């Protein structure tokens, strides 16, 4: 589940400097991680699938910085590619959840009445399932793999975005500038896209990065269980689970893939956290 850190509290923030620096640390980390993921084919020192059986289970060395796994594959290269697949699965999942959730949340807030009741009841039902269990259910239906993993995460996070956007959207929908836009004949869609949504960008960005952080962990958990990305495609969770079998011979694969998961999840969570603390206080009251 998303470690939904502390709720937005109205705290008088007297000293902003330390948070801003954490924020820039997090942002720098995210930029580097994304660049590494994007440039994986350019910077990975070896083919992530290339086996070299003579070099199996070797420790970190100048040839293999993070050692090799049970098939002699380079751990660093596999982590770089694993990062790429983790990030792309999680980001597309959270993006789909954002699209679905925001459409539902905005519809509920804008039209009220039965539309709202039905949508929000449905969201309550989805929200009632523990994240891992709903994900396991989706995978039981669709079969293991990267796409079902992304679908499972997207379904689980949709109600979070719907709830998140409905509250502030209700407030904004009643505000003077929306009423005046309506009075000059702006269409519903135009009001939602041009007047309501831009006011919620920072709330969305905070939630997006926090949920992306959680999605990385859920994806890693599912592939650790063998339900996510299937071999031979490298994935961080699967490397951890394979490395576990050689824990006492060659712990590096398990250790370093876990460190990679931690770094990505940490950077995203810290970013969302620092951004939230820095948010416009108007948006904290939801």
């Amino acid at each position, binding site marked *: *589940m998303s*470690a*939904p*850190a*502390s*709720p937005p*509290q*109205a*705290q*008088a923030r*007297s*000293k902003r400097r*330390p*948070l801003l*620096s*954490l924020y820039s*640390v997090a942002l720098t980390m995210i930029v580097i991680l994304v660049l590494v993921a994007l440039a994986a084919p350019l910077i990975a020192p070896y083919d992530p699938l290339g086996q070299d059986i003579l070099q199996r289970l070797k420790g970190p060395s100048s040839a293999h910085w993070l050692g090799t796994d049970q098939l002699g594959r380079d751990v660093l290269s596999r982590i770089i590619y694993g990062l790429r697949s983790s990030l792309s699965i999680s980001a597309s999942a959270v993006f789909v959840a954002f699209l679905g959730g925001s459409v539902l949340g905005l519809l509920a807030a804008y039209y009220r009445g039965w539309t709202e009741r039905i949508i929000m*009841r*449905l969201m*309550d*039902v989805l929200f*009632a*399932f*523990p*994240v*891992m*269990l*709903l994900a*396991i*259910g989706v*995978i*039981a*239906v*669709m079969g*293991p793999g990267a796409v079902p993993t992304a679908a499972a995460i997207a379904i689980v996070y949709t109600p979070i975005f719907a709830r998140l956007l409905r509250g502030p959207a209700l407030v904004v929908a009643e505000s003077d500038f929306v009423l005046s836009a309506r009075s000059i004949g702006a269409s519903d869609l135009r009001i939602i896209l041009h007047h309501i949504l831009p006011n919620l960008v920072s709330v969305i960005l905070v939630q997006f990065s926090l949920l992306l*952080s959680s999605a990385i*962990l859920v994806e*890693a*958990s599912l592939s*650790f*269980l*063998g*339900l996510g990305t299937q071999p031979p495609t490298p994935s961080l969770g699967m490397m*951890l*689970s394979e490395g*576990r079998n050689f*824990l*006492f011979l060659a*712990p590096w694969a*398990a*250790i370093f893939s*876990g460190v990679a*998961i*931690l770094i990505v*999840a*940490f950077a995203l*969570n*810290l970013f969302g*956290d620092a951004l939230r603390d820095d948010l416009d206080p108007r948006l904290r009251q939801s």
Partner: protein
Amino acid sequence: MVFLRRLRGRLIDLAFVIAGVSVLVFGFIRMIPGDAVAIMLGANAEVTPERIAAVRTRLGLDLPIHEQYVAWLSDVLRGDFGVSIWTGKPVIDEIAAHVWPTLQLTLLALATAVILAIPLGILMARLRGRRGEALVQAGSVVGLTVPPFWLGIIMILTLSAVAPGVQMLGYVPFSQDPLGNLARLILPAIALSLPIMANLARLLRSTLLEAMQQDYIRTARAKGVPARRVLYRHALRNALIPFITSVGIMAGYLLGGAIVIEQVFAIPGLGRLILGAIAERNYPLIQATILLVTCSFVFVNFAVDVVYALIDPRISE
């Protein structure tokens, strides 16, 4: 009165959620693409159309969909969750045989998290505005995001280097060997509890800081109550209310985490059961596990909500 009105509202919510969950879980087997029964029976040479038809009838899959739902629901309400595709035994028995390790692990992790989060949260609140604050904040985010299954592996690795021969894996029932039971569960419980602990400590910190700005705190200070007493008696008591509410929500997270960490420590709990069920496509077992666990999760949160309304004077009076 406020309390009763709130209770009624919550009961209505509860009814809707349980009904929705039951429909989704019921629909689950029917959402499997292709013929679920043929898939369940596998690409086995002995699979004949007659056998498929027999299983279909046994599962009630040959009736109209709403009749299937009503039949299924009335079975479930009578405690009949269907039989395992492979063993033919009631799935409820298999769940009962695996639920205790998971439940014990979850509760132990929850207790560890709550017990440690309270002093940690207070400490973090007191560090507010001091020099180390950013570091503490970053540290708490590490706690939030450390994957418990990785932490468990690191623990096994470290402990076996420091104290070789210590039995850390597996499970023995508490009734058989209380000490051995706790000794085996304490490591996974700690690993599992860390994100929750960090989460609860951060929550407590922010609610404490918010409480410290309230009028009643200023009043208490003004009449000369010592700072310590203001913090512990006045601010903490109020800050604990949201803390308690989120403990209920954490239960669901812990349960999911337990499923994963059971694999690391070779604990024969619900995680092993449900993963085995997925591998052998034992859909009735998966269905019953999801239904039972989700419903208990919903009821726990309902209970927490009622308790919350009872202890919060703004609602209970």
